[in-house]
């Protein structure tokens, strides 16, 4: 069914390409067509120093994006899968050109060969399995003191009448912030996050390891904070899910080397007093002299890679015997970094819906082309078909409804709406996710649950006292239930009868 969706969209764009004479329009359409075949584009955005590049490295599992204590990323940089390592420089005006680069302890440092403001963006191609699933886009920090830098990100993320958003989905990084109620979103709006919509944005509480002063309970505190953010009604409208992630931990977990583990083990094996003294402050840890037999430069690197929390946690894990070798530590660090959870959420929120999100972007491109010209018979036909696709494919309807639902625009009881969110695929497109059952539930149970849900929503849809919007939504939910049943191995009610 989804392939059918993409086929229809592609066909429509093709038709538009041939029917519209304007070269500018053709260029947009050609780009949109190419994009349909590419992996989903996920942008990573947030305030400066929120840990965007670190998170990117953690997600790719390779140290690619340069990171630094000061503001670092100044150019929108695409990281995509490719046959070999290469860097393409896209100029503000002029054709893209290939640039030489070198890798400083993994990070790709590009020789721009020209002032930063002449560069529109960089593309770094990397052979990577992870990047095959989705292209990642690192953006400069919002609220940066160099306004130029912030502006780039805003320009990039913004979609308007003339431009299609370049990213299909956004991971928005928040550092630990607060506000009883209003203050919170006010500052949020200060960040101009109004870009994402609740169906294609996920919030990440970043640098979670630093919450609570790098004490060992940091991640638990971070989880509490994220929960609170998630229950904030207005934040939920911007990104319905907030995952706490310690990017450094995740990156280290992905790339920890044996010698690093050995150094940590040496530290952990030293007398307790020496260890405590060493771990007291970051300065002490990187200080030249220490009773612990690990060289200063090695310690400095460890701290840069793991952060104070990461080092404290690793030492603790090794000391108490939870971790015995580098492999154990890697597993523990990734598990505690929150990265696995983020991957799951991304899979459910973005990848499961990748085709719909891509189709959405493609249709949006068509819209901009059509909107900019007079309506005539030709464009009217295109508009009509785009409408037909939007209304005809149930996945589109689901995404649209999720959007409505999460913006708080549907009347209904909270428990009702939560169930609807799930059934519409809000927590993942798989049948078990939709029904709120364990992934390994037997199909009999799934079918029973789906049938029960179907009956329940049928009643809502037909109940004369339901609000009109709710009834429309309920009808769509019924269709989703039918879809679940149709997809189960043992067939439920015949979908043809609906």
């Amino acid at each position, binding site marked *: 069914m989804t392939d059918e969706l993409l086929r229809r969209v592609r066909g429509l764009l093709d038709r538009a390409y041939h029917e519209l004479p304007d070269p500018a329009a053709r260029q947009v359409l050609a780009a949109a067509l190419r994009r349909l075949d590419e992996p989903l584009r996920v942008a990573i955005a947030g305030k400066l120093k929120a840990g965007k590049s670190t998170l990117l490295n953690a997600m790719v599992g390779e140290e690619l994006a340069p990171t630094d204590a000061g503001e670092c990323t100044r150019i929108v940089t695409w990281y995509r899968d490719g046959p070999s390592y290469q860097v393409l420089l896209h100029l503000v005006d002029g054709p893209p050109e290939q640039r030489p680069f070198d890798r400083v302890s993994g990070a790709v440092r590009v020789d721009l060969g020209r002032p930063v403001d002449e560069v529109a963006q960089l593309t770094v191609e990397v052979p990577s399995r992870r990047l095959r699933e989705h292209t990642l886009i690192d953006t400069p920090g919002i609220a*940066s003191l160099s306004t130029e830098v912030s502006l780039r990100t805003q320009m990039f993320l913004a979609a308007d009448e003339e431009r299609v958003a370049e990213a299909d989905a956004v991971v928005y990084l928040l*550092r630990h912030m*607060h*506000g009883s109620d209003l203050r919170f979103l006010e500052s949020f709006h200060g960040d101009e996050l109004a870009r994402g919509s609740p169906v294609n944005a996920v919030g990440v509480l970043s640098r979670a390891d630093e919450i609570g002063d790098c004490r060992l309970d940091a991640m638990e505190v971070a989880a509490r904070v994220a929960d609170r953010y998630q229950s904030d009604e207005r934040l939920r409208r911007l990104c319905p899910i907030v995952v706490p992630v310690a990017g450094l931990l995740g990156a280290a977990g992905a790339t920890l080397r044996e010698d690093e583990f050995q150094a940590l083990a040496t530290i952990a094996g030293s007398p307790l007093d020496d260890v405590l003294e060493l771990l007291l402050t*970051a300065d002490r840890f990187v200080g030249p002299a220490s009773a612990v037999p690990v060289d200063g430069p090695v310690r400095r690197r460890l701290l840069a890679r793991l952060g104070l929390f990461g080092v404290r946690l690793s030492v603790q894990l090794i000391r108490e015997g939870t971790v015995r070798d580098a492999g154990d530590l890697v597993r523990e660090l990734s598990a505690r970094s929150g990265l696995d959870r983020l991957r799951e959420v991304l899979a459910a929120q973005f990848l499961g819906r990748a085709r719909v999100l891509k189709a959405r972007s493609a249709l949006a491109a068509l819209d901009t082309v059509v909107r900019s010209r007079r309506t005539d018979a030709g464009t009217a036909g295109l508009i009509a078909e785009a409408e037909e696709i939007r209304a005809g494919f149930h996945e589109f309807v689901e995404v649209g409804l999720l959007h409505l639902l999460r913006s708080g625009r549907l009347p209904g009881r909270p428990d009702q709406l939560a169930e609807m969110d799930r059934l519409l695929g809000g927590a993942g497109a798989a049948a078990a996710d939709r029904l709120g059952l364990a992934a390994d539930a037997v199909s009999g149970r799934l079918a029973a649950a789906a049938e029960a849900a179907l009956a329940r929503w049928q009643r809502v849809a037909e109940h004369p006292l339901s609000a009109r*919007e709710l009834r429309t939504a309920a009808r769509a939910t019924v269709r989703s239930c039918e879809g679940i049943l149709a997809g189960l191995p043992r067939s439920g009610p015949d979908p043809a009868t609906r």
Partner: protein
Amino acid sequence: MTAVARPPGEAAPQGPGRGVAVLRALDDLDRVRVLAAASDRPDLAARLVQARFRLLSEDVPVAVVGEFKQGKSTLINALLRTDVCPVDSDIVTAVPTIVRYGVPPSVVAHPEPGDDVTEPTRIEVPFDRLRDYVTEAGDTGVRLRSVEVRLDRLLLRRGLSFIDTPGVGGLDSAQGNLTLGALPLARAALFVTDAGAELTAPELAFLTRTVERCPRVVCVVTKTDLHAEWRRIVELNRGHLARAGLSLSVVPVSSFLRLRASARGSASLNTESGFPRLLDLLRRDILAGAEATTVRATRQEITFAVTELRRQIGAERAVARHPEQEPVLVERLAEQTRRGQHLAERAASWQTALNDGTQDLGSDVDHDLRERLRGLLRRGEELLDKEDPKDNWRDFEAWAGKEAAAVAVDNLFTLVSRTEQLARDVADRFDLEYEGLDLDLPAPAAALAKVGVLDIRFERSSMRQFLGAFTAARLAYGGMFMAGAFGSLLGLTVAAPIGVAVGMTLGRKLVRDERERQLAYRRQQAKQELRRYVDEVGFVLGKDCRDAIRRTQRFLRDEFAARAALAERSSAQALTAVRQTATLPDDERARRADRLEEQWRDLGRVAERIEAV
């Protein structure tokens, strides 16, 4: 130093380490007070006692400001080596907390003034429950304006106090505006940012506005224990500040190390924490700076008293030495008394300036407020026209609250600067007339020329200078914090979705028309609600402004009227004294002349010391 009895009922100079300038000012003050008492001027003496009290009880509030979770409360705890400010990894400070000197230690909560007059205006809080009152998680059911903590700490003894503010979420937030609004009350501010990241654009913008409102600002970089790269961050921040044209001290500190140092009594840890430098800045820069201002005001007060005493003693001294000049002096003094009387009358030009100025001030500030509120209303209506109030009502509420706070703060700023202008104008007018009270006295006899050295020309400080001690902000604000003064935009019941019956019977087009009608209706409702809110804000602020102006007028009137009365009294007293002294037998008059000469010399010495500064 002359042994001077301390006036009863007054605090002893507190603690060690009062600045030399303060001690000198106290010494001068006491000398002049004794002279005033000896010259039968209890009125002047009483004024000096008040000045003495003000000098000693001077409060130097230091506001601690910055974004959420930068470690503001921890910083105060570390400064005072205490754990009184609640600290949590998750929960934040929601109510401004003032920590100042007091024995025994106590906590008092000040509730938001409500409609119910029977509500208590202060609540005693046990120390262990402080957390419930000041953090956002606390649920005490009482809306608080501020919480005051009194502690016995050396640092606080000299009058320093710290205000722990709720973190501002971005420069534009309502809380940010309210914090800015309260800043003119503080004598200094510590801007707190952590070593995890360099300054952001909103932070720097907030910092710039802080510097505009607060005379002394220090940028404190916290949590240096957690970030190995803190030196880089400090350097980067210095660069950002320099580029923004702000010359502030940047002090990196680790509250964690300071508290650990205090728990273990370790001096080296304390040094490592970076706090000694911050404390030094607080003592030397902030406290000494604030003290200098207060001392200057005290000196002006002494100068005024010296001028008055010289007028009185000078006339009597002249007649004691040259009794034959009595008729001339009497004539001149009679004229002076007449002028002095005029100065105290309602028709005096400073009084006119004050009355006219107050009226102008009132209408200008009111106009300013109206203008700003109209702007707010217009922008709000534009926003409402763009979107459906049903979707963004809560965001809109937040926006309106934030804008209202901005209006309030800007309007107060106008009020404060205009009030200061008025005070200066009145002072100038007063000066002109006060000037006219000066009297040419006969030159001292040749025999006494040797003391002429002390008879230096004494620059009378103008009234304008006295205003250095006058802080319009304190008068204007009345209270301590104006947090959340104007209710909120509630009450909007969003029109219900189209009813069931309608939905069943109407056709598609009708439904669409009905939707549009409902949207228009919602917009209209929302606009009405906005207008009501703006009205209410205008009402509250308008009343605050009028009260502030009335307080200012009363203050200036009382202040200058008191001075006029003192001047009048000096002239009258001089007149009586001149008449009496002229009729004294020769030997007695000679003794009197000697005593007067001594007093004159005393005054001269004080004057000289003050001049020398």
